[in-house]
C-alpha cells in the first residue's frame, strides 16, 4: 500500500479500525506513522484545553433586563451581595489567592526588563520574585489537595487534574512571555489562568467549612 492510499483512508480509520493492509502500512511507514502520531497528539492536547475566558458584565446585564421585561423573574429582595453573607473562614487560602493575583501583577508589569532582571538576579545568587512564587505555588497546591483530601476525598483527583491543567496554562503563557514580553494575548492567558487558580483555591477553602 502506498502512502497516498493510506492517507486517503486516514480520516476514517484514525480513531480505530482500518484494514489489515492499512494497519501494516502504519507499522512499516515512518512518515505515515509520524503523521498519525502528530494528529492524535493534537486531538489529545485539544481535550486538555479548558474554558479560560469570561464574558463581559454586559452579558449578564442584558440577560437580567430581558428576564425582568419578560416577567421570568420575581423582583429581587434586598440583596446581600452576589456572594451572600461574607465568609470569614477561608483560612490560610485567601491570602494565597491574593498572592497569585499579586504575582500576576508583578509578572505582567515588569515587562521587558523581566528577562534581564531574572538573569542578573540568578547570576548574583538571588531568587527572582516569580521563581519564589513558583516554589511556593507547588507547596500551596499540595496544601490545597491535602485540604480537599480531608474534607472531600472523592474530589481530590478532580482538583489535582484541574490544578495540573491550569498550571500548564501558566507555564505555557510564561514561556511565551519570556520569548516576547509584549505578547498581550499571552498576558491575558496568564491573568485568566491565575484567576482560575485563585477560584480553585477558594472553592477548596469552602469545602473545608
Amino acid at each position, binding site marked *: 500500500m502506498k502512502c497516498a492510499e493510506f492517507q486517503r483512508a486516514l480520516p476514517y480509520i484514525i480513531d480505530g479500525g482500518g484494514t489489515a493492509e492499512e494497519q501494516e502500512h502504519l507499522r512499516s511507514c515512518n512518515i505515515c506513522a509520524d503523521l498519525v502520531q502528530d494528529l492524535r497528539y*493534537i486531538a489529545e492536547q485539544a*481535550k486538555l484545553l479548558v474554558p479560560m475566558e469570561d*464574558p463581559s458584565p454586559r452579558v449578564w446585564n442584558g440577560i437580567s433586563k430581558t428576564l425582568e421585561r419578560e416577567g421570568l423573574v420575581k423582583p429581587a429582595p434586598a440583596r446581600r451581595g452576589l456572594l451572600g453573607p461574607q465568609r470569614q473562614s477561608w483560612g490560610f487560602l485567601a491570602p494565597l489567592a491574593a498572592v497569585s493575583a499579586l504575582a500576576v501583577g508583578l509578572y505582567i508589569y515588569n515587562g521587558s526588563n523581566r528577562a534581564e532582571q531574572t538573569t542578573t538576579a540568578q547570576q548574583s545568587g538571588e531568587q527572582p520574585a516569580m521563581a519564589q512564587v513558583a516554589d511556593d505555588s507547588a507547596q500551596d497546591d499540595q496544601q490545597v489537595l491535602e485540604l480537599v483530601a480531608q474534607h472531600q476525598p*472523592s474530589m481530590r483527583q*478532580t482538583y489535582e487534574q484541574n490544578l495540573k491543567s491550569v498550571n500548564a496554562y501558566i507555564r*505555557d503563557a510564561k514561556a511565551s512571555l519570556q520569548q516576547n514580553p509584549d505578547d498581550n494575548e499571552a498576558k491575558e492567558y496568564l491573568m485568566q489562568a491565575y484567576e482560575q487558580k485563585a477560584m480553585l483555591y477558594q472553592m477548596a477553602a469552602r469545602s473545608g467549612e
Partner: protein
Amino acid sequence: MTQAKKILATGISEAEAIERAKAGDSESFEALYGLHKRRVYSLCLRMTGNTAEAEDLTQEAFLQLYRKIATFRGESAFSTWLHRLAVNVVLMHLRKKGLPEISLDEAMEPQQEDGPKKDIGARDNVLAGSIDRVNLERAIESLPPGYRIIFVLHDIEGYEHNEIAEMMGCSIGNSKSQLHKARMKLRDLLKISRAEKAVKH
C-alpha cells in the same frame, strides 16, 4: 469539578438553584449563570472566533435556557442540556450568516493539499511534547470557520461524529473528513510556529 461546582457561592446546590430558578428566583438565575458562563462563552468564542458575537450568543443561550428551564426534568445533567442548547444557538446563528457548506463532493475527491505527506526528516519533527496551550489556542483561532467548528465540537467539546452530523446536517463521513483537514491544518500551523521560534533562538 462537578460536585465542587454544585456548591454555589450562595451555599445552595445547583439542583436547588435550578428549582428556585423555575420559580422565578432572580438570585438563582444569577448563580446558575455564574456557574456556567465561562464554559458557554468559551464554546461560543471558539466556534465564532469573534468576541462580540460570542457575547451576544452567550446571552441568547442563557435566555433560551431560562425560558425553557421549567421543562428541565433532570434526565440528563444540567450542564449537558445547557451545552447542547448553546451549540444549537451558535449553529443557528452561523447558518443565518451563511455557514460554510460541507460538500459531499469535496469530501470524496482528493485535493492538491491532500497529497501524501513526504516530510523530509519527518522523524525529527514530530509534534509530541512540543505543543503549548497558548500556541494551540492561537492556531485554532486561525483555522477556517468550517474546520474550526468541527474541530471545536469533536476534539474540544467531545461530540461524536454522528452527533455532529445530525447538528450540522451532513454525513458522518463529511464530519470525519473535515475534522481530518482541521487537524492537518493545525499540524501545519503548529510546525510553522515551532520553526519560527527556533529561528528566533
